[in-house]
């Protein structure tokens, strides 16, 4: 039984690397749902990945991310580049289900366009989003897509992680995205290589780009790249040529002086760090004797104890009881 499945997976990998859509899609699913063969798949895929140019697109809901991505897909394809898109939308914290609506705006019009779009829900597991979407992107990369676009709603930290796992980050805003204070807030605004003020036909587009420019000017952070600001109206394809050229000028910047390599190495370091932590946690969980967490919760509640200290004591006592911690003399 096991061997049969391995052969099946091997065949899927082989077909995927040749660019067969159906197989690529199955492969992503296996990795997405943490099949027992997921690590095996990623191991086989890895040597083929790393050739694509990764673009992250993020921003608040309704800013026009999917519409912009749709226009960019068209422009990349027109220049004979193949495109893979991972579009992430949030999942319900209650049911785990999701409504993934990015495809509504994405319309691949011609069969000649070499595009693969995959929607993903962010999942309920912390860090799960970063893991699966990066892996899906790697699969598309390995299977020959030259441009990889990862689209996420920029609201939480893990979405920022994904954006930062790409070579060029586009932050898409609208004239309604807020005043100067909103622009100065930490997080989203700090990760952009390129700012897009979309729906620029509406009043206030100039104001917001002035705010962004001011924020960048005042910033003390050392940058080797000055983030560019573009005004667009993606739905009517206005300003898209400039944006497209802007993306490539960032790419050109990256390819100078090994910047791309450095950026990817830095990201790899970050990713490995997270993964190593996760692996440690997993192994330790398996090694310590299982305790009744419900009892700990109840106990903490009744004693009105502080969770931070309770957690620390929980870990220490688990390690001690399992003989993994040096006992006090």
């Amino acid at each position, binding site marked *: 039984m096991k061997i049969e499945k391995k052969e099946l997976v091997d065949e899927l990998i082989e077909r995927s690397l040749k660019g067969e859509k159906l197989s690529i899609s199955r492969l*992503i699913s296996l990795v997405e*749902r943490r099949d027992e063969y997921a690590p095996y798949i990623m191991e086989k895929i890895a040597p083929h990945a790393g050739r694509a140019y990764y673009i992250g697109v993020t921003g608040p809901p309704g800013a026009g991310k999917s519409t912009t991505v749709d226009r960019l897909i068209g422009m990349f394809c027109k220049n004979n580049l193949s495109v893979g898109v991972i579009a992430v939308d949030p999942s319900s914290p209650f049911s785990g*289900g999701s409504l993934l609506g990015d495809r509504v705006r994405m319309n691949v019009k011609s069969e000649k366009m070499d595009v693969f779009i995959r929607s993903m829900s962010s999942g309920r597991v912390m860090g799960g989003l970063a893991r699966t979407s990066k892996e899906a992107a790697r699969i598309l990369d390995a299977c020959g897509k030259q441009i990889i676009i990862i689209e996420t709603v920029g609201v939480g930290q893990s979405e920022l992680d994904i954006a930062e796992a790409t070579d060029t980050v586009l932050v898409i805003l609208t004239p309604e995205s807020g005043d100067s204070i909103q622009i100065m807030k930490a997080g989203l605004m700090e990760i952009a290589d390129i700012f897009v003020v979309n729906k620029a036909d509406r009043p206030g587009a100039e104001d917001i780009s002035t705010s962004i420019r001011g924020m960048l000017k005042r910033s003390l952070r050392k940058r080797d790249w000055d983030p560019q600001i573009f005004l667009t109206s993606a739905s009517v394809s206005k300003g898209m040529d400039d944006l497209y050229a802007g993306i490539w000028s960032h790419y050109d910047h990256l390819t100078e002086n090994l910047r791309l390599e450095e950026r990817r190495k830095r990201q790899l370091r970050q990713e490995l760090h997270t993964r190593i932590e996760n692996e440690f946690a997993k192994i330790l969980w398996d090694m310590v004797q299982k305790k009744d967490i419900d009892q700990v919760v109840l106990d903490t509640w009744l004693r009105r104890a502080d969770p931070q200290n309770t957690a620390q004591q929980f870990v220490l006592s688990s390690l001690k009881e399992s003989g993994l911690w040096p006992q006090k003399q």
Partner: protein
Amino acid sequence: MDRKIKVVMAKLGLDIHWRGVYLVSQFMKEAGMDVVYLGNKFPTEIVEAAIEEDADVVGLSSLSGNHLALGPIVVDMLREKGLDRVKVFMGGVMPPDHAKRLEKEYGVQKVFLPDTPMQEIIDGINAAVGNTH
């Protein structure tokens, strides 16, 4: 291993009625499914999406009378592409005998007509997909 049912939902062809498909999509989300909503799409695009998304289920909404013209094309194209395991469900307004024909002659798993309780749709999908994965 976590396995959620993945559904691709579309308004078939040029149908503009949105309330039904929104409502069903929302209930599916609340039942723990991943719903990829496509908006208005024609069969080629719907099948393309089903391939790329590795869908378990395709849901088609039709209230404009195009159910017999376009519904069977989606089923056929899925089979042609080797996606026999993808179940096609339809919903909307159509004569009951058309609904029966779609199920009996054209390989649509089930057609849900107006006033179908939401839970029946969820149960129908769970039952149909449950035994394929």
